[in-house]
């Protein structure tokens, strides 16, 4: 069986059942039910601690991804990198991510995810996507960023937040 290529550009997502591999932009990943993982973490340690654990995990992962991306694309502008990352979000099933970068990056960066795969008003689900964005933007901007003004609308099936420099 030939590897299945998904996405507009060849090689963006490659699912190779023969090898038991899934790759997005060349990075090997595993498709798991992240909502279930977040819900279970909430049950184990409570919603607040689960959110802190997920924040710690995703923030670090975001910083690592930022360093990798910078090394792979040393000449890319911030806008180009963010465009790549939002595409990565769509391909990996996170949802449709929109990032509004202000001219001055010390001003709030607005992020909205429509149709998010992991959703919730609190707990690990709250930190799952946006803490990663806080980490990746911290790495790219070389500023410690934080997630503020989080909003989840079940009715609109979307989550929104601002990423701002820490005090």
């Amino acid at each position, binding site marked *: 069986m030939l590897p299945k290529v998904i996405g507009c550009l060849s090689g963006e997502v490659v699912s190779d059942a023969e090898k038991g591999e899934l790759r997005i932009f060349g990075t090997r990943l595993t498709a798991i039910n992240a909502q279930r993982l977040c819900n279970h973490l909430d*049950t*184990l*340690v*409570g919603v*607040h*601690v*689960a959110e*802190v*654990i997920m*924040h*710690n995990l995703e923030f670090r992962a975001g910083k690592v991804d930022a360093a990798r991306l910078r090394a792979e694309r040393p000449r890319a502008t911030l806008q180009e990198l963010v465009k790549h990352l939002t595409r990565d979000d769509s391909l990996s099933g996170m949802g449709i991510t929109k990032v509004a970068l202000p001219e001055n990056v010390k001003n709030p960066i607005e992020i909205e995810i429509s149709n998010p795969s992991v959703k919730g008003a609190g707990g690990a689900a709250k930190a799952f996507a946006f803490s990663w964005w806080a980490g990746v933007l911290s790495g790219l901007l070389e500023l*410690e960023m934080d997630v503020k003004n989080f909003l989840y609308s079940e009715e609109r099936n979307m989550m929104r937040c601002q990423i701002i420099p*820490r*005090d």
Partner: protein
Amino acid sequence: MVTEKAVVRADEVFAVNEKVRWVALASNRGDVLLNQMRAGVKSYSPPQVDREFAALGPLTILGVCERYSEYLKDVDYVVVWFHLAVCVYARLGTQVLAVSLEVDREAVADFLEWLEKKRRQVSAGRQES
């Protein structure tokens, strides 16, 4: 960059009992506000491990235990009795304290008595502010 003010100082904790070896304090978001060995005392573990543990370890342990709060009411503290040291983890307002002591029952009892007072003091301070 962390600006949250620590609710306790290291010297205050070390003064409780000379058997207190190490003190750490983290915010409820996992920011380490304090991570200090008593002067002249050598840690059994690498400093980086202590720091990483201080960020999320005590908070996670307390979080797991607090799942029972629904039935058994609040958790005052968690004591872990290792062969080489005794560790105490507790919430102080919105922050989380972690302390290690020599294996000495009197020293631990002394420390827990101080901790109960300190928790009441921090809690009263929060209610006033």
